[in-house]
């Protein structure tokens, strides 16, 4: 396809040419000369003192080059893993931030905590040697549950973190909220759990460290969504490697979902070990290892209340959440249940006052951090469940109560009581269209038909909003971010007119190589095939904050758009010189520079060539070359949103929930590539439904063992769990991003869990059920049905 491919069309994805042929290059595919294999020995106990570690037998095994422990790293002054975002508690104190050594010393705090690292010629030798390490553990009582961890006599993870409380955080005006509750006609309340999730990207984590003596430079190949940030965190703060002496490469990465946007201990350990051994060292997580070495997501316990007037209008909301941090703070751990959660509690509604309190709690579990949606699915779940609850208690239809309280289109920009100001949106428009597509009017007929077969059918709704395009640096800084959140792009035009884009975001399934090429093709009129998108290598790309929080198009695409504008301006200057006209008279359209009102013109390719052959350039005013760079820092978040309807059928004999229909109408702003947007929505919705129906990270409450530690026990959603999803965009234009885009990567995951649970609860309406915790698994639902049918005598 040697043509311009503009905004709004759906070319096949450029990257798929290599992926569908199995020709991608993932970290595990990379082989370096003299490369050694590393294996971690991980704690089998949730909480224990490390009395001693005897590595002598392991060291004597064939092929073994080294066995490192936490003490070795400590002796080398290796630092702890840093936190990228600090929060301040309600009393003005900083959060408790205990050290997080890459390999544990003194104590282990969760099953999977690294205890030693074995390096050998082959992986089999390293595995065999790891089994020979003798660890003297003094097992301590463990605590994994949020409520349990705050109990007075709970096991303490840290001597200097009383009650395992990392921070007691708040947002909003509690006295205004209290006053509103006093005058309310009705108060709806709910207690709910947001279940722990394990991300499980298709490609497990992997890392290779290498040290080159001659240049004194380190290289880390890693499965990361943000290589520049890893360079910053690991280089500066953990290993003390100057930035110009460290290259971080994140090549093809097989899915991230947030799991790969943290700086992991394993990255630091392989890099450090490579320096010590003078040979490259590779670690690839085993599939089951990933269950305990990848950060987990969600894990909240919440009590929430909504105050309403007699007409069902919302007056105020009060939310109290316990959020699990796991055993250590992961890179963004404390930011997720606070700054990315509480500001979303207004949903798509006008709620005059909101107060939210979040206690961040340490437990003997894998660290918890961002996972697709990160804070926003949790907020949406609270708001939407509470709205359903209020509708039910007040006898108002659940669609109607939403319409009564939605922010009308004309009310944008809308300032919420929880920091954020929504720039644009049309929640009612989304809802009305979704209602039509979902055939809500025909639902009762379908419900009756199910009932005739002895099945319960339910219709669920979720009208959600999210904040994405992370993030305005100024605001982020005020909220505790320890770095800016802009993005950068360089547009390098070659003498032929072909273009290489160097961008700081990272493509790991989102189709950036296609979408970004479309933007450039559209802007510069360059054929789609002539554009390459480069990312993921700190030696090639100037800088970047990476891909997460639905930010790549919103922030990275904006930088790219601005850099393209600069290229056009420079091109016009060259054209003005070449065509002997003034700059003001040069117009650029459809890949051609021309003198307005004449037939004098030069193609983009001709101007690119001229830029590099400046024989007669007026050098005082015109530099040779055609390459421009832009850094874009957003002025606000963007606020995609939408209205989803789910329809489920429940078999009361087995409790199994079958998804019958799913309809999503989403406002993602301007759409560059409709096919990719649809794919993102599909993936997101399915992932959210995974949380609602299937996925559950479960720990044994006493031993602290992870019971859902493999795909035999951790239930991933599969294609046969789904009907064809009905998806339609209903876009409003973002008022502050260059192309009007809002982002779409997390929408589905944020909107869908609440829609599913709303449907399950609706199905069980005949039994008087008001709420169901996730996942709505067969045994769970069967228990609810059985208990409702045969009420247990009060104790």
């Amino acid at each position: 396809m040697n043509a311009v491919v503009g905004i709004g069309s759906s070319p096949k994805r450029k990257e798929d040419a290599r992926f569908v042929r199995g020709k991608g290059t993932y970290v595990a595919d990379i082989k370096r000369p003299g490369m050694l294999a590393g294996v971690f020995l991980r704690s089998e106990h949730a909480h224990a003192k490390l009395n001693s570690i005897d590595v002598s037998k392991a060291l004597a095994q064939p092929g073994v080059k080294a066995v490192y422990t936490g003490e070795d790293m400590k002796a080398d002054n290796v630092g702890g893993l840093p936190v990228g975002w600090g929060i301040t508690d309600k009393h003005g104190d900083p959060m408790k931030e205990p050290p997080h050594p890459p390999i544990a010393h003194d104590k282990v705090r969760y099953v999977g905590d690294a205890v030693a690292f074995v390096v050998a010629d082959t992986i089999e030798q390293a595995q065999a040697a790891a089994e020979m390490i003798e660890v003297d553990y003094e097992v301590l009582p463990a605590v994994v549950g949020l409520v349990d961890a705050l109990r007075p006599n709970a096991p303490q993870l840290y001597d200097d973190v009383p009650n395992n409380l990392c921070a007691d955080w708040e947002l909003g005006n509690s006295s205004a909220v209290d006053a509103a509750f006093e005058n309310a006609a009705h108060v709806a309340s709910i207690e709910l759990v947001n279940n722990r999730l394990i991300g499980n990207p298709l490609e497990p984590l992997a890392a290779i460290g290498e040290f080159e003596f001659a240049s004194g430079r380190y290289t880390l190949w890693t499965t990361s969504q943000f290589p520049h940030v890893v360079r910053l965190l690991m280089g500066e703060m953990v290993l003390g490697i100057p930035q110009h002496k460290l290259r971080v490469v994140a090549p093809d990465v097989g899915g991230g979902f947030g799991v790969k946007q943290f700086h992991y201990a394993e990255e630091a350990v392989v890099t450090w070990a490579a320096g010590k051994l003078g040979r490259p060292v590779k670690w690839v997580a085993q599939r089951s290892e990933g269950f305990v070495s990848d950060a987990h997501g969600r894990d909240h316990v919440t009590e929430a209340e909504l105050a309403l007037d007699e007409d069902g209008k919302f007056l105020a909301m009060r939310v109290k959440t316990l959020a699990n941090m796991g055993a250590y703070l992961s890179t963004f751990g404390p930011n997720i249940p606070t700054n990315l959660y509480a500001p979303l509690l207004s949903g798509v509604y006008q709620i005059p006052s909101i107060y939210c309190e979040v206690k961040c709690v340490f437990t003997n579990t894998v660290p918890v951090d961002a996972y697709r949606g990160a804070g926003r699915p949790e907020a949406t779940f609270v708001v939407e469940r509470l709205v359903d609850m209020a509708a039910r208690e007040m006898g108002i239809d659940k669609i109607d109560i939403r319409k009564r309280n939605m922010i009308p289109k004309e009310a944008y920009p809308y300032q919420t009581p929880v920091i954020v100001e929504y720039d644009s949106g049309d929640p009612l428009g989304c809802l009305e269209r979704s209602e039509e597509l979902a055939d809500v009017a025909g639902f009762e007929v379908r419900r009756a038909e199910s009932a005739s077969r002895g099945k319960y059918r339910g219709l669920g709704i979720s009208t959600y909003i999210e904040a994405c395009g992370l993030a305005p640096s100024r605001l982020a800084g005020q909220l505790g971010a320890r770095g800016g959140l802009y993005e950068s792009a360089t547009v390098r035009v070659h003498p032929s007119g072909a273009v290489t884009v160097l961008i700081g975001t990272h493509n790991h399934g989102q189709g950036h190589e296609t979408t970004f090429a479309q933007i450039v093709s559209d802007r510069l009129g360059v054929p789609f095939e002539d554009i390459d998108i480069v990312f993921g290598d700190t030696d090639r790309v100037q800088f970047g904050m990476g891909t997460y929080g639905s930010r790549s198009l919103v922030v990275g695409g904006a930088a790219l758009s601005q850099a393209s504008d600069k290229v056009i301006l420079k091109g016009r200057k060259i054209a003005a010189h070449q065509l002997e006209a003034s700059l003001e008279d040069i117009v650029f359209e459809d890949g051609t520079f021309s003198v307005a009102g004449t037939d004098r013109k030069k193609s983009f390719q001709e101007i690119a060539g001229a830029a590099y052959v400046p024989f007669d350039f007026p050098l005082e005013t015109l530099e040779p070359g055609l390459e421009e760079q832009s850094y874009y820092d957003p002025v606000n978040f963007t606020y995609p949103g939408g209205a989803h309807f789910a329809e489920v059928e429940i078999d009361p004999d087995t409790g199994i929930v079958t998804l019958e229909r799913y309809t999503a109408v989403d406002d993602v702003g301007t759409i560059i590539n409709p096919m990719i947007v649809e794919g993102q929505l599909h993936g997101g919705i399915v992932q959210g439904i995974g949380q609602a129906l299937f996925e559950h990270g479960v720990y044994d409450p006493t031993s602290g063992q992870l019971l859902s530690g493999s795909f035999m026990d951790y239930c991933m959603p599969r294609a046969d769990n789904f009907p064809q999803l009905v998806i339609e965009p209903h876009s409003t234009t973002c008022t502050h991003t260059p192309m009007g885009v809002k982002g779409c990567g997390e929408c589905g995951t944020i909107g869908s869990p609440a829609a599913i649970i709303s449907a399950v609860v609706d199905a069980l309406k005949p039994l008087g059920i008001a709420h169901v915790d996730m996942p709505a698994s067969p045994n769970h639902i069967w228990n609810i049905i059985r208990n409702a049918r045969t009420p247990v005598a009060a104790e």
Partner: protein
Amino acid sequence: MRSFNYHKPDTLDAALALLSGNDEALPIAGGMTLLPTMKQRLAAPEDLVDLSGLPGLADVAMEGDILVIGAMTRHADVAASPLVKEKLPALANLASRIGDQQVRHRGTIGGSISNNDPAADYPAAVLALNAEIVTSKRTIAADDFFVAMFETALEPGELVTAIRFPLPEVAAYMKFANPASRYALAGVFVAKTTSAVRVAVTGAGPSVFRASDIEAALAESFDATALERISIDASELMSDIHADNEYRANLVMVMARRAVALAQQSG
């Protein structure tokens, strides 16, 4: 995985010779259970004897009134076999629902029953159909074969060569799959012959077992309504994060009723 010696004998005698007296040797059929255990370093045989080169072990044929299925027959081949579909459709149907495509194209009936996973599907069929297990040494009745969780009557070095299925009047299998693994949370195989009704349950207990109360009720009246007043004792069933024992007890009855209904339809 630890390193091992790989053998691919081309006669049964050669395979038996490799296995005999060697505690560190294991036969491998489809490898769908054995390989993952080796990767996790839970099994570490020094010698692996691949059965896929042995002649005649993957045949499906009628011998008189008996359907004989070779131990090395893959699940996918049982599911697709015109002979099995005609003579014992319940078994073809069971095989078509084991695991996923990949597993069905590697895993074998001999491997499955030798492994005797408490949640595997085939053991329910073998037990309910009162099949005979033919080994390199003898013939074992199904009632004697499945001893306990992951334990069978097989002696070290003894190989399953075929399973002999007498044909029932009607039979059906119903499985409620574990949503994660898709093994059986409860699977019930119901088989009615001219002389008896046999019902075997997998997934619910520590090992496949016959449900005598259900058998008795169905012997009186082979109809799903005959099971309405029957329940099964939950105390001997398993509990885990997917299903507690009471839920499993319920599932057994639901699957039993559905299996009887299906058997009646097909019969």
